[in-house]
């Protein structure tokens, strides 16, 4: 039976969809069978970053309303054999055209066939978030080292804790700018983790490659040498129960001569 996880953040633009796509890809590369579900009704993106938007025939609202069977709506990502599937959101439906019970039913129907079901929640704490959370056994809270993102993450953790999920929420710190963290201008990893009071699942550095690859309809995880890719791969391995040490992201200290000539 598969485990369902919701990827959520409260704040928009911190990388929920990117995280969903990359963790999903990383798990598929590890040989797991993964289903990604886009719950952002009206503003779907997951299909776009995976380069699958042309293949959509039915969406999750079609499934929920009985117009299509769930297997008709699932899109197979051919790059990963039979291991990565996407259930796209509707682009032209109203936000409230999906109910938490319907999402739970869809997740439960798919559960026997997959190892992981990852639900990409929309930003906010309204219907879309409630839908995504309803189907999940656990949550991955994504934040960035910014006070606004951390504050929203705090609110989300509070809402998640009221839900009595099987697994406690775990934290992913995304878009870490190494040089800013090194010189103390951005919030520290330990500081964020301690403040939120949940386990840290992994960290991902800010990387131009993430944007570049998603513009190509690919995920950065496919590039094994990239630093952000390694962050996502480590997260996937930790999800599978491996114990992987946290990546060392400290940049080389800027030397005196470097300072002298580069200002």
């Amino acid at each position, binding site marked *: 039976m598969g485990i369902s996880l919701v990827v959520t953040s409260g704040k928009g633009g911190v990388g929920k969809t990117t995280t969903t796509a990359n963790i999903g890809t990383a798990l598929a590369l590890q040989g797991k069978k993964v289903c990604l579900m886009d719950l952002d009704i009206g503003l*779907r993106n997951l299909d*776009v970053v995976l380069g699958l*938007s*042309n*293949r959509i*025939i039915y969406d999750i609202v079609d499934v929920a309303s009985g117009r299509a069977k769930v297997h008709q709506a699932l899109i197979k990502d051919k790059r990963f054999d039979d291991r990565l599937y996407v259930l796209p959101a509707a*682009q*032209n439906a109203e936000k409230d055209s999906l109910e938490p019970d319907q999402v739970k039913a869809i997740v439960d129907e798919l559960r026997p066939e997959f190892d992981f079901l990852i639900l990409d929640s929309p930003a906010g704490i309204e219907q879309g978030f409630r839908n995504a959370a309803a189907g999940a056994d656990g949550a991955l809270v994504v934040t960035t080292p910014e006070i606004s993102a951390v504050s929203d993450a705090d609110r989300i953790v509070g809402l998640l804790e009221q839900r009595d999920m099987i697994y406690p929420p775990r934290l992913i710190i995304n878009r870490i700018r190494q040089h800013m963290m090194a010189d103390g201008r951005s919030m520290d990893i330990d500081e964020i983790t301690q403040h939120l009071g949940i386990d840290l699942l992994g960290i991902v550095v800010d990387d131009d490659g993430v944007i570049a690859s998603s513009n190509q309809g690919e995920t950065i995880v496919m590039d094994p040498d990239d630093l952000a890719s390694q962050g996502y791969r480590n997260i996937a391995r930790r999800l599978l129960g491996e114990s992987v040490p946290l990546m060392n992201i400290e940049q080389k200290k800027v030397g005196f001569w470097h300072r002298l000539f580069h200002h």
Partner: protein
Amino acid sequence: MEAVTLKGRKDGFELRLAAEASLAEIAAALATLLARVAGDTKGTEEVAFVLETGDRLLSEEQAKAVQEVFAAYPHFKIQTIHADVAATAPLREKFRAKATHLVGGVLRSGQEADYTGDVLFLGNLHRGATLRTTGSIFVMGTVEGLLIAGAMGDQEAVIVGDISSAGQIRIADTLEIIDKNSYTAQTTSYIDDLHALVHGKVPDLAKLRPKLFRKLEEL
């Protein structure tokens, strides 16, 4: 001018009900005429009449009044009632179903445009947008979204024009996901005899779908 004239046709008899005459006049004239015909044609063999009402549309009540005259002669039948004119409302519907709509402007992600009939698309269909019609689609604009022709199941519908950057095209119950391709403005997409969505060139269209060029003749 007689209120009712009897004419012989290849396939039977025709009764012309003069549009200038009043209904009462017509009923009276019809009664006399039918009585005479009944007298001339001995026996009870069935005789069918086509009623031509010319420039008048009979209302249901008026048609009933005419039928009542016929009721006295069980072997006389009204085959059809036909007028040279038509009401505008159903005609407009018919026109709309056969019309070619010019569609321009920008259709954005999540937007859907629905038409009855054919569409000449001159606008910009963004990724995630849908253009749907019951008839055919002729693309002269830019299409990156979803095109649906023959939305109510018309197998004869076609999509003509450059679909190289479209996401998907659907005709009736067939569909194609547009991946790498070499489609051009000359591409004609249609359903072939084997019920597959295939592509030809514009010059083939007259042979493939001759009716497309005779739309107004068939109205």
